[in-house]
């Protein structure tokens, strides 16, 4: 398990890019108080999803507005065609931890892990 940060350091509505792993992941704290972790890189073109628009359980890519479901990693709206990996989140004693997926990452053309 990878320790991300304290829960108090990631307020609701905010996202954090974690680039000490490759490919980087993004951890989101939704307005409803849930924490999700997905791969940070949009599968369409290189962009950080942590920089995107978080609304409900969806994040919209800051570049070309593809939408991903944080719960499943699936694409909800184009132009992306492929989903991102999701990672398991655990919150223990006010600390956020992530267990990285062992699936192969899905990265946009020209980007390697």
């Amino acid at each position, binding site marked *: 398990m990878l320790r991300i940060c304290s829960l108090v350091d990631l307020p609701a509505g905010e996202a954090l890019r974690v680039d000490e792993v490759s490919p980087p992941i993004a951890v989101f704290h939704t307005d409803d108080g849930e924490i999700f972790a997905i791969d940070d890189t949009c599968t369409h073109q290189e962009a*950080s999803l942590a920089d995107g*628009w978080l609304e409900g359980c969806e994040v919209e890519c*800051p*570049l070309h507005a593809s939408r991903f479901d944080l719960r499943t990693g699936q694409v909800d*709206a184009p132009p992306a065609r492929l989903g991102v990996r999701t990672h398991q989140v655990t919150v223990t004693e006010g600390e956020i931890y992530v267990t990285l997926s062992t699936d192969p990452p899905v990265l946009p053309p020209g980007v390697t892990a």
Partner: protein
Amino acid sequence: MREPNSVTIVGASLAGHATAKALRRLGFRGAITMIGDENARPYDRPPLSKEYLAGACTEEELALEVKDEALDAQWLLGVRAVALDVAAMPDVPTHTVRLADGRSVTSDAVVIATGSKARRMPGAVSGVHTVRTLADAAALRSELAPDVRVAVIGAGFIGAEIASTISALGISVTMIEAAATPLAGPLGPEMGSVVAGLHARHGVRLLTGVPVAGLLGDDRVTGVLLDDGRKIPADVVVAGIGAVPAVDWLEGSGVELTPPEIGGGVVCDSVGATSARGIYAVGDCAAWFDDATGRHHRIEHWTDSRDRPAVLVAGMLGQPISAALRAPYFWSDQYGVTIQFAGRRHGDEDLTVEAGSPATDDLLVVYRRAGEPVAVLGMNQPKLFARWRKELSRPRGRRSAELQPLGTSSATP
């Protein structure tokens, strides 16, 4: 209103496809018929002036449909709709779409999503292109070679992206713009010149304030004749001179259109219903009532064509509308710079540089009217831009004039 049993969607591009997806997502189980005048299944158009033109992506990669989409629609592709017969008796709302090959489709509801078509240069000499469809982009691409000279007429976003793509292939490009400043319409003159400054810095020659008088050459184009008598030699000419809504097939249908001078789109309420019961419109061809401005407004932005269908379908099926419309938004990728703009600009705003500078291609500018932010422009500022865009999409009165903690420094450009 009674839920329809069958829906015909005229137009199989972004807005039409998103309509079909929204219908299934919201549980519609009736018949869906998709009519498209191109042979291709729904595809993404923005890459046509960029990656696809550069040969960096394939036709398959442009597909909008994803695996296991299960739209369960009947597809009539490669055939144009030529007329719409609106049901005579409103209580029996069965409408008929008539097709160019003589076939017709009847249904309880019709969604007009025929989009827009590129304005083309008068005269039909070869070597003159516009880029609207896959076939258009493929035709232009087939003419590109290192020793050709390309002239692009119109320095709007499509023209600018095409110039950027072609010049990156090592091909000489001249852009010709009738207005004194490119992009003055969408961005205003100050920011228009900033964004247009990218051309010069990347070796594209930009001629402004010079209308085009005509094309040179008999069978094949040899250049562009300017109003002031200058001749710009060119082996290939690309016209990026705007688009008009594809609504001529609605003539005689009784479906109301806005006057041509304000866009000529299909008049709709704020959820896409037209003046005729059971007939809806969405995408480039539709002029929805905009609650923010109090008038009908045709929007040609990609994101609106993608997002409005979900609102339309919720209204059609009598379901609550889950997401409010966001501030109008578009982007353009040129010379490795992502340009993003969101909001509604009238032309009387004060502009403030919130971050970056034009010299480093990382500008973020906020447009304020009476102190209230109404629009935002970003160049390679995706994170900050996303925050401002979200802020601008909040209902009026709940916006802050400054964005904390990111909106800190300010200076007048």
